[in-house]
């Protein structure tokens, strides 16, 4: 749904105020406690932040991509841990059901995902399988009218909080590629599901990942996303989910970069060396200018790609470009932010080193930079062959 400019600006104003006044003061505490306070999670639910991409008919906001990226820019202005908690419900944790789910699956899960009552998690990565779908080992064996799921999933974002998993499992044991894999929607409380301990991560403390172990977990055929008709079609579902996710991650990267540039500017005006603010030195100015230009380029890429996606244009190449460029960009911007802050950038009090660690993940999850390069180049070559 396309919002009128007035309503959109009210949405954005509200999110900005919420981020600036409610979330930002808690950044250090969330990192220290490795937890988001329960009342803040409730505030995030009350705000409607879990249902941005879920259709209005199911209790979400049904935002167009170009609207969602504007909100994601703002969410990027604080610790990525906050965004991570709502990220799966808006992206990979719900979109499989939104795009390919049956009506029953939609009405059963989406309203609770939209309200944030239920957290959705996406179980694709395995100990022996990440970007390489062909080596996916988790199996779903047919047993009468049911399937029995066995296998281990790794680094699963929000798994400790999740109420429902989207699980990718091999339903055709003879297949050696993505074609024999199905996507299941699996309630987290089913017998046979257990969780590993929380992973100790480099950054994004407060956002949790862990192993999810499936031991003879019995699910009905109707748990296949889209029903039996979509047996063995799981990877097609995954691919459809990814464009939206890549654009979302790209916009969060832009938001974090803009935040770090603001922090760097403030410090450049405040910190004096040799009798004047360091911002008056050209070598500092060069870093500020490079960061600004790159963040602006990424913002333009994301906005343009989101606009095209809303027009129904296939943006899989462009979405991969956005994810790759924005995540690499924010890595450089964070590095310069540490440099501009000097010693203050390296100690924890200013929070700059925390962002430096937090943003490292953006280049890795939802498709590494190298996978994005493959996607982009393969699409380019495929198109070129039809010239």
């Amino acid at each position, binding site marked *: 749904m396309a919002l009128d400019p007035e309503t959109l600006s*009210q949405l954005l104003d509200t999110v900005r105020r919420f981020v600036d006044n409610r979330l930002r003061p808690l950044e250090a505490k969330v990192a220290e406690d490795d937890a988001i306070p329960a009342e803040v999670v409730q505030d995030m639910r009350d705000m*409607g932040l879990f249902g941005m991409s879920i259709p209005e008919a199911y209790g979400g906001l049904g935002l167009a991509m170009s609207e969602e990226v504007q909100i994601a820019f703002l969410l990027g202005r604080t610790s990525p841990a906050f965004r991570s908690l709502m990220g799966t419900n808006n992206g990979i944790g719900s979109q499989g059901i939104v795009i390919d789910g049956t009506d029953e699956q939609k009405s059963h899960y989406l309203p609770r995902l939209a309200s944030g009552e239920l957290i959705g998690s996406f179980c694709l990565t395995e100990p022996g399988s990440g970007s390489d779908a062909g080596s996916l080992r988790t199996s779903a064996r047919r047993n009468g009218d049911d399937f029995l799921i066995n296998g281990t999933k790794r680094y699963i974002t929000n798994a400790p909080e999740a109420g429902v998993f989207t699980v990718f499992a091999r339903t055709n044991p003879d297949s050696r590629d993505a074609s024999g894999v199905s996507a299941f929607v699996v309630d987290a409380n089913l017998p046979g599901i257990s969780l590993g301990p929380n992973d100790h991560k480099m950054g994004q403390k407060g956002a949790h990942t862990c192993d999810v172990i499936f031991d003879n977990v019995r699910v009905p055929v109707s748990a296949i996303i889209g029903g039996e008709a979509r047996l063995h079609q799981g990877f097609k579902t995954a691919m459809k989910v990814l464009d939206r996710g890549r654009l979302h991650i790209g916009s969060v990267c832009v938001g974090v970069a803009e935040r770090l540039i603001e922090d760097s500017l403030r410090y450049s005006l405040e910190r004096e060396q040799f009798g004047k603010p360091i911002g008056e030195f050209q070598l500092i100015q060069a870093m500020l200018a490079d960061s600004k230009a790159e963040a602006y380029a990424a913002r333009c890429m994301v906005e343009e790609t989101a606009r095209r996606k809303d027009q129904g244009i296939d943006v899989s190449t462009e979405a991969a470009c956005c994810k790759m460029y924005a995540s690499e960009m924010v890595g450089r911007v964070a590095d310069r932010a540490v440099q501009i802050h000097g010693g203050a950038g390296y100690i924890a009090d200013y929070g700059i080193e925390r962002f430096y660690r937090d943003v490292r993940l953006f280049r890795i999850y939802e498709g590494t930079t190298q996978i994005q390069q493959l996607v982009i180049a393969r699409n380019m070559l495929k198109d070129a062959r039809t010239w």
Partner: protein
Amino acid sequence: MKVLVAVKRVVDYNVKVRVKSDKSGVELANVKMSMNPFDEIAVEEAVRLKEAGKVSEIVVVSMGVAGCQETIRTALAMGGDRGVLVQTDADLQPLAVAKCLKALVDKESPDLVIVGKQAIDDDSNQTGQMLAALLGWPQGTFASKVELGDGVVNVTREIDGGLETVALKGKAVVTTDLRLNTPRYASLPNIMKAKKKPIETVSPADLGVDPAPRLKTLSVEEPAVRQAGVKVGSVAELVEKLKNEAKVI
């Protein structure tokens, strides 16, 4: 019970206000505007009373240029039921606002009117009091607590000496102070739903009010730049400077 809440569109509290070059007022072009924070507290209080089942309808009123609709929408997103915009380009002063509000109270017959104690742009702190006088209603200003009893509104007021509680009988005007409540963030779904709530637009003339200003602004100036202080070496020097330079003792 029906409540009427008045909200004013003002320059956002985060904006650094600048004086126009002709000194006729402050710069409003391309400046972020939002709801007066005291009025947000008024809206929040009305919404809480409604959530507590004590209020059945909240009517939100704003006055001024067409853009005030946005301010009304914000209040509707927080929980107001419908809006009334008194649209005018006139330079509205407290008496004109109070007269328009009186006309609307006569028309809507609310049981309670809640307004912010003052607006952060001109800080007049007059509208609520003028309205109570025009209506002949009791008033509870600078409220830090509002309790609805049976035919009575108990208002705890922040006064210089501490807290004072007044019991207002019948219909009343309440003006809100900072510590009454913490306004909520409107939820995103409610912002979208607020779009569908009705806003009626009327003019001061429709209400039989002449909004012409009674006061004339001659000139608006930036505050004087504060001079740097000096360090004194001794108490004697301080006393000498206070006496002969500052001439305060």
